[in-house]
């Protein structure tokens, strides 16, 4: 079969971006200004080609792959090219129902981000960087080789670093460095974990795709297959202690990326300083790399350790959920509030994982997807707010409903979607998480008081969103103040490209809220496959195994 992934999905945006950047690198300021228009159009066109492509994959136009019924550790569109034979490194790509929604989401957000930030300054450089960002993100999701996975994982940092550094706010230098060093440090721990995993593999059996020199492999399907066999035999793959240590090391890298409390403080800084486009991709896709990684590696390889750390994960998830929400309530900066709300929502994903229920995992997967559509809209609103009112402070602008009705409407929609209004995408995930959590608590005899956390957060989330809307959309009597920074000029509403981006995001929020099955059915199917293929044979009944 033809390789539908390597070149079309990963190589194309990266190469296009490099070519465009090379093209503008030797030009002067005025030339770049003139080039920004054609380059913007070209970037949009390229990203739309990508979207057409993944959408075609969904509708089985390309490859004729049914996304339901792919059994655990089987992948579609797989292709493997030998890269470094002596070490067992391959360029391996493939998709399953875990990674495909993320890939589609990335290709969906790319054009939307380009449209939403249509008038970003220095566009000749900015738009190619967005393309590079997209290519790197897709690379993470399609990689089926540990080496390649890690490579793309770190590659995503570079465009984001430049986006923050070059297009960011006042403290962009500090924020970009903090973002880079913080997540890079965590990734190094993860890298050590990956290398340890590589060397602790059993070299006795002739491994398929093993390196000629080391006898070991970076191939994820092969490792997963071996782990599955070993785990199913009643043993802990690699031994109990190493499994626990490796699980913790990998999880650390993913938890920082997610981010979970207490490893979250890079996120608000990065978001507040990042340009709108950077924030949209950061919140929309980059955070989900953490959750995706958890499912792909530690959970698939070390189910015993997952069960061993279940309590810890549940605690971290619950703390993230509650802490993030309460911090939101204490924020005065609109974008910071939205950033912390992401922390809170990522807590939902962790709790879903920690329930060790198919419903909880499907909730986590759907939350990844739904948050990936809703949070870009949140940040697009924040970006427009900053752009027009030159301030991020809640209360800096009151009476948006009158002065900027489009922005006010978009804000209300995005806020309502994020607080989990039914028939918008976020609700389904929250509902499933709650049900799975309660079921788990009762079935395994945990205290039902764990439920207090989500219950509290449901109310607190509504409180901080409504409070911020009261102080932006509505007028405030004596407090009403069109921002002083405008010097009495008429207050503009959002521009047409921004309107278009908002409409697209809102439309898809509704589509996936009213018809969640479009995405949820394949996610559900994947959770059932991993449960029946991995968790049940190994862990058996409740409290077994550990």
């Amino acid at each position: 079969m033809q390789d539908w992934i390597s070149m079309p999905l990963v190589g194309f945006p990266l190469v296009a971006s490099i070519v465009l950047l090379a093209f503008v690198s030797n030009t002067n300021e005025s030339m770049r200004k003139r080039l920004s228009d054609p380059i913007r159009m070209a970037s949009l066109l390229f990203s739309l080609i990508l979207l057409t492509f993944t959408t075609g994959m969904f509708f089985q136009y390309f490859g004729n792959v049914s996304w339901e019924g792919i059994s655990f550790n089987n992948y579609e569109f797989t292709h493997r090219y030998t890269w470094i034979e002596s070490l067992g490194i391959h360029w391996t790509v493939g998709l399953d129902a875990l990674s495909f929604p993320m890939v589609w989401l990335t290709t969906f957000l790319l054009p939307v981000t380009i449209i939403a930030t249509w008038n970003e300054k220095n566009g000749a450089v900015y738009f190619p960087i967005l393309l590079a960002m997209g290519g790197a993100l897709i690379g993470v999701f399609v990689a089926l080789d540990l080496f390649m996975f890690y490579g793309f994982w770190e590659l995503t940092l570079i465009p984001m670093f430049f986006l923050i550094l070059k297009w960011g706010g006042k403290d962009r230098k500090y924020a970009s460095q903090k973002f880079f060093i913080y997540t890079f440090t965590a990734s190094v721990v993860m890298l050590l974990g990956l290398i340890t995993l590589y060397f602790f593999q059993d070299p006795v059996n002739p491994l398929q795709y093993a390196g000629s020199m080391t006898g070991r492999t970076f191939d994820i399907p092969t490792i997963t297959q071996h782990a599955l066999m070993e785990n199913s035999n009643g043993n802990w793959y690699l031994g109990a202690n190493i499994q626990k240590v490796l699980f913790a090391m990998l999880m650390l890298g993913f938890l920082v990326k997610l981010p979970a409390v207490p490893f979250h403080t890079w996120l608000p800084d990065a978001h507040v300083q990042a340009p709108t486009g950077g924030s949209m991709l950061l919140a929309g896709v980059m955070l989900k790399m953490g959750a995706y990684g958890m499912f792909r590696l530690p959970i698939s390889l070390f189910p015993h350790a997952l069960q061993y750390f279940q309590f810890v994960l549940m605690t971290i998830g619950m703390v993230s959920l509650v802490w993030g929400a309460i911090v939101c309530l204490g924020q005065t900066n609109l974008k910071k509030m939205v950033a912390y709300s992401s922390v809170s929502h990522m807590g939902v994903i962790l709790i879903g994982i920690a329930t060790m229920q198919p419903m909880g995992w499907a909730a986590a997967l759907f939350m990844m997807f739904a948050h990936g559509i809703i949070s870009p809209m949140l940040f697009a609103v924040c970006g427009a707010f900053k752009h027009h009112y030159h301030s991020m402070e809640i209360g800096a602008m009151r009476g948006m409903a009158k002065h900027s009705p489009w922005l006010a409407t978009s804000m209300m929609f995005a806020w309502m979607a994020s607080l989990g209004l039914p028939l918008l995408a976020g609700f389904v995930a929250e509902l499933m998480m709650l049900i799975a959590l309660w079921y788990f608590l009762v079935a395994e005899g945990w205290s039902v008081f764990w439920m207090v956390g989500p219950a509290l957060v449901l109310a607190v989330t509504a409180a901080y969103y409504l409070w911020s809307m009261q102080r932006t959309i509505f007028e405030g009597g004596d407090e009403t103040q069109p921002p002083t920074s405008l010097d009495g000029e008429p207050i503009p509403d959002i521009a047409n490209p921004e309107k278009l981006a908002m409409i697209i995001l809102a439309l898809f929020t509704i589509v996936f809220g009213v018809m969640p099955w479009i995405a949820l059915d394949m996610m559900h199917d994947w959770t059932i496959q991993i449960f029946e293929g991995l968790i049940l044979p190994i862990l058996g009944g409740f409290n077994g195994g550990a």
Partner: protein
Amino acid sequence: MASTEVAATVHSEWMQFAPLIILLPMVAFAVILFLGRVFNGHPFWKKNLKEGGLIALPVMAASLILSLLLISEFLKGNSGVDQIFEQIAWVNTGIWNGGSTTEPVSFGFGIYVDHVTVMLLFVAAFLCLLINMFSIGYMNTDPINDNRNHRFYAEFVLFCAGMLGMVLADSFLWLFIFWEIMGLCSYLLIGFYYERPSAASAAKKAFLTTRIGDVFLMIGLVMLWDLFGSLDYAVVFATENIDAVAATSAGTLQWALGLMFIGAVGKSAQFPLHVWLPDAMEGPTPVSALIHAATMVNAGLYLVARMFPFFGAESLHGELDDLAFIIAAIGGITAVMAAAIAFVQMDLKKVLAYSTMSQLAYIFTGLGCAMYLANTLDWHHDSDAHYIVVVAFGAALFHLFNHAMAKGMLFMASGSVIHEVHHAHHHLHHDDDHHDDDFDAQSMENMGGLASKMPITATAMLVGSASIMGLPLIGGFWSKEGIIANAWRVAQDDPRFLLPAMCVLLGAAMTGFYMSRMWFKTFAGKPNNEIAAHVGPTNTWIKTPLFILTFVTLSSILLAGMGFTHWAADTEYSFLSEKNIIDGILYELGHAFANSDSFFFILTYVAIFLGAVIGPGLAMALYGGKLAEGEEAKPWMRPVIALSAWVNKRFHFDNSAFTESSLATALENRLYIDEYYDKAMVNIVAGFSNKVAEADTEVIDGTIKAIETGSQSL
């Protein structure tokens, strides 16, 4: 995969169009919003389409017609409690119960029709249409709404869609989904005048207060799902499933239902989550009518009524009586509290708001008592007990019906008064730009003696008030007497119920007082000022719904005679199946006024005496009076005004001791409850969250920064 095929259980060809009852208004929402954006200010859009009002109207009419077809189909016995549709599988997922495979779990959407559905469906669809008519007369004639009415009509139809959807949904999950959509619409509509800070704060308060209830409701639903493995009515109400749950976890079920009840407390504005309802008056008056009569507050009642099968289940006999008591007690407390606060309100709409709260509390008391009876009597086998339970449940539902009709009428009438007072004010002060700052068109201080100037409105208000008060033979009388009687019947069995029983009896007198006070202050006596003297009659769009609802309220006796009470509670009874209408009315009259049981005979007359003599009498003594010279009311209002003038002259007393007392001050300040809540929000919640936010920067990020600094100094 979603299956959308229509199942074989469809009974009549057109029944497959039943979802249009919900879908039409939902589509209209998008259409009106879109057209409004595009054609805003266009003369055709403004004059001929009334900025969307005339798009909403046919849509609501179509919803009503489809609803009536569905209802007639149901009354013919065609569909019973069957689900009309095979469910649309909305969410498919799985659960692992510790076995060797995972179990599939599915949440679907379908339509479920039974007697409670049918009654609420009629109330909602009928009132939504009338309020839509009223809105055209009210919203489009006020320049303050110019060029933004499309927003009103769009949100209005979505609100109606939410209510209709909630009533038709076939599972607690979809009940909750539509419930939340109503919450959103109430937020948007209460905050319609975004330029008013008070509206912004009222909208936030409404959403947040109901959200607190919703959180409990959601947890309750999750618990209920855990017990039954489903939230579909067809599954959770199945006797064998209830039996299975009753055998192992009746206590958990009571907790689940109790948490769900907290959701109803929030939505129906009962103590202690009642604070949002009076503030919700910040929205335009049609919104008040919509929230108080057709939609929002009825949702909580509907949810509690939906729980009835649990209380009535044989296997849960005597297991849920504590919850039934809590429901009745919350109702009783709220009934008295709200009525007391209504005593001192000067704002016409606020009086009505507190009266809604108080009347809903009656319905909650009635439901609580009916549920207690169903839970403790052996009503499955004993036909006397069966009759008692059915009548008790039916009385509560009938009061819901009567209250919705009367309150819809009262709000529209009050809107008509406010509208005309406002216009009169404009007329008198048209040069003055700043008059709106200190003039309150809603204050009864600016009214008085309007009976001659607005005859239809005054009549509607009179009939509506009489229905709420429970004056003999009119509207709410038939249901309120039933609720009071049942509360006392239960109190004889269980002394705990003396609390709600006393409360509803006392509440009858209080209702009589505050509703009469409102009517006399507004319509009797001499105009309080120049403005009230210049009020003119209202327009046709406003008069028509008032006229229709006056007729409906007055014909409540026919419904009673047709056995509405029995039918609303139990599908085994059908309209007119047992006796003809004359016999029915005679039976109801005999039952009400010549009860063979001496206890209930005395109780009836005590209640009538309190509600129809003591309460209105006090109000007449304080606020009654003749109209101004040369003004003449319609003949049917003349005796009322004359009587009030006579009582006022003969029995007038000085109530300044009360109005200056600290109790009156406390009541004016709504018993300081709102203040306590505000304080708690500001001091505890905001204070705590600021501390946490600080800790996040100082401690967590501080550690990172310390590492940073440390590593740099190396």
